[in-house]
C-alpha cells in the first residue's frame, strides 16, 4: 500500500518564539528519512509539533497523511491515523503499566505480552522492565527501547524518532537501527529519524537525508550527504540558510 506523509511550509511557535520557519518534507511508506542538524535547529520541535504536544503552536503550514489534515486531529487521532512519535525523553507515568497503555491504544490483547517480549528482545531490552510503570526507573537507553516496543506492537504507518540514538551504546543502537529497517520492510513503516550524530547511519540506511538549520530544511540528498556533514560539519549549511533568509 502506498502512502504519503507531506509536511509543507510548517511554522511552529514555542513559548512565543518561532522555531520552525517553513519546514518542508515529503516521504512515502517504507522509506527511511533522516533529519540531521545542529542543536537548536528545530528538530525536536518538529517531532513535538507532529505529536500535538501542548505548548507547540502551529502558526501556518500543513501536514497531511494520505491526504488527511493531520493538524486538525487530536494527539490520539494522529496516533490512530498512523503517525507516532518516539520522544527524545519519554515521560514517566507512575502507576500506569505499558501493557495497559498498549491495550488502550488499540493493541490486540490476545498474545500481547508475547509480542511485547519479542519486540523487547529485538532491541536488546530485558522484557522484565516492561512490567514496571511506564518509564519509571528505566535508564535513558531503556526508555528509548521501550518506545521501540510500542512502535513494534502498534505498527504505525509512520514512526518519527527524536534522537533515538542518545543514551544507547553502539550495540543497542545497532539493534534499534536494524529493528527500524526491518519495520520498513515488514509493514511498510515510513521511518523519520531525527539525529545530530551520523553514527545512527552505520546501520540505518536512509532513502533521503535532510539537513536542518534555523527551522527549515536547507539541503536534501542521498546517503552521500552524511559524508559531507562528517567532513565539513554543519557550518557550510548554516551559511546557506543565512543566504536564503
Amino acid at each position, binding site marked *: 500500500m502506498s502512502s504519503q506523509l507531506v509536511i509543507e511550509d510548517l511554522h511552529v511557535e514555542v513559548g512565543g518564539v518561532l522555531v520552525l520557519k517553513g519546514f518542508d518534507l515529503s516521504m512515502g511508506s517504507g522509506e527511511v528519512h533522516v533529519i540531521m542538524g545542529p542543536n537548536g535547529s528545530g528538530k525536536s520541535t518538529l517531532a513535538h509539533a507532529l*505529536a*500535538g*504536544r*501542548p505548548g507547540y503552536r502551529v502558526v501556518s503550514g500543513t501536514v497531511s497523511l494520505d491526504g488527511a489534515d493531520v493538524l486538525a486531529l*487530536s*494527539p*490520539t487521532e*494522529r*496516533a*490512530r491515523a498512523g503517525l*507516532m*512519535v518516539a*520522544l527524545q525523553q*519519554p*515521560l*514517566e*507515568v*507512575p*502507576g*500506569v503499566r505499558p501493557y*495497559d*497503555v*498498549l491495550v*488502550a*491504544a*488499540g493493541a490486540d490483547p490476545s498474545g500481547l505480552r508475547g509480542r511485547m517480549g519479542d519486540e523487547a528482545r529485538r532491541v536488546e531490552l530485558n522484557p522484565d522492565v516492561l512490567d514496571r*510503570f511506564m518509564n519509571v526507573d528505566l535508564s535513558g537507553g531503556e526508555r528509548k527501547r521501550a518506545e521501540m516496543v*510500542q512502535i513494534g506492537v*502498534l505498527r504505525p504507518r509512520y514512526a518519527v524518532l527524536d534522537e533515538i540514538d542518545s543514551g544507547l551504546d553502539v550495540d543497542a543502537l545497532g539493534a534499534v537501527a536494524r529493528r527500524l529497517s526491518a519495520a520498513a520492510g515488514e509493514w511498510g513503516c515510513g521511518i523519520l529519524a531525527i539525529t545530530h550524530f551520523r553514527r545512527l547511519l552505520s546501520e540505518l540506511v536512509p532513502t533521503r537525508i535532510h539537513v536542518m538549520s534555523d527551522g527549515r530544511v536547507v539541503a536534501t540528498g542521498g546517503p552521500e550527504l552524511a559524508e559531507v556533514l562528517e567532513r565539513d560539519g554543519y557550518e557550510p549549511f548554516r551559511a546557506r540558510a543565512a543566504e536564503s533568509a
Partner: protein
Amino acid sequence: MTTFADAATSFIERQPNAHDRRRAWAAFEALGLPTTTDEVWRYAPLSELSLDRFASTTSSAARADSAIVDGLVAHAGLVVRVVDGVVTSTGTALEGVSVTAEATVSDEALAQRYADDAFAQLNAALAPTTITVRVARGVRVARPVVIVHRTEGSVSFPRTVVALEEGADATLVEYYEGGKDALVVPMSEYHVGENAELRLVTYQRLDPSAWHVARSTGVIARDGRLLQAVIGLGGYYDRSRNDAVLAGAGSHNELRTTFLGAQSQVHDFRTHQLHLGAHSSSVLLSKGAVTDESRSIYTGLIEIEHGARRTDARQTNHNLLLSPRAHADSVPNLDIRENDVRCAHASSVGPLDELQRWYLESRGVTPSDAQRLMIRGFYNEMLVALPAQLAHLVENDVTAVLESVTAVAS
C-alpha cells in the same frame, strides 16, 4: 414531633447503665454541635446539620448483602454483623479470637479522654453495644476478621474495641454501608500489644446522603505495629479522625487514607500521631481525588514528645483535582519537643499532569482512557499496600467507582 433530644433521652433511660450515659449526654449538650467558626470544623457543612432530622425511629428494610460484602465475607475467617450499632451476629468462633458484644459502658475515663469532642460524647451516650475483638497472646489469625456495619435507621453509633495481646497478629476490616439520610458516628479503639501486628482496613461505603463522623485511636505498645488503611468513598460529609499513640519503644504506625469525592461530597481527614516511645516510627500517606464540586481536607499533626528519641515520622498528602470546581486543602503540622528525630512532610494539590496525559494520548490512547489509567495509577500505591487477601477486591470496587466518576467527568 419527636426531637433528637427526646429520642436520645428515652433511649438512655431504657439502658442498664443510664447513669454514665446521662453524663455523656450532658457533656454533649454542654459542648453543643460544633460550628464552622471552630477551625477544625471549618469545612463541614454544619449549617445543614440539624440532629432533629435524625430523630425518626423508622428503619429502612433490611437488604441483601451487597457484592462487596459478599466478597469480604468470602475472604473472611470470622464475620461480625452489626446493624445500627447493635451486634446481630458474632460469627463462628476462631481459635484464640474472642468476640463479645456487651452493653456499652461509658465510664469516667472515656468521658475524660474525649472531653472536647461532641460527637464522641454522642457515641458515649448512645452506642447500644460495644464490640470487643480480642486476639490472645501469640495467636496469628490467618484470615481477616470482618465487621460489617449496616446503617438501616436514621442514626448509628457503632463502638468497637480491638485488642491484640502480646505477639498476636491479625487483619481486621471494618466495613460501613447503608445510611441513607442517616447520621453514622463510629468510635473505635485499637490496642496493639507488645510485638503484635494489626493490619486494619476501615472501609466506608455509605450512602451519598449520609453524615459520617468517625473517630479512631490506636495505642501501640513496644515493638507493636499498627498498619491502617482508611478508605472513604461514601457519605455526604465524611469525617474521619484517626489518631495513634506510639506509646512503646520501637512502635510503628502506618496510616494510608484514600478517598474519592464526587458531586458535593466533603471528605475531611484528621490525623494525630503522638510519639512517646523512643525509636518509634510513623508513616502517613494520604491520597485522594476530588471531582465535580467536592472538597477534601487533610489535616495531620505529628507530635513528638520529649524523650521520644530517634523517632522517624513522615507524612505525605497528594490531592488530585479532577474538576475546576473541586477543592482540596492540605495542612500538615509538626510539633516536636525532642531534638534527636527525623521528620518529613510533603503535600501537593493539582490536576492530572498535562504532559503525562498528552504522552499517553500520543500513543493512541483516548483522553478519557488516559485519565482513567492515570487516576488508577494515582491510587495504585494505596491499593497495593492493602492486605493481600483484600487488595484485589478493594481495587475492583474502587475502580468501579472511579469508572462511574470519570465517565461523568469526560
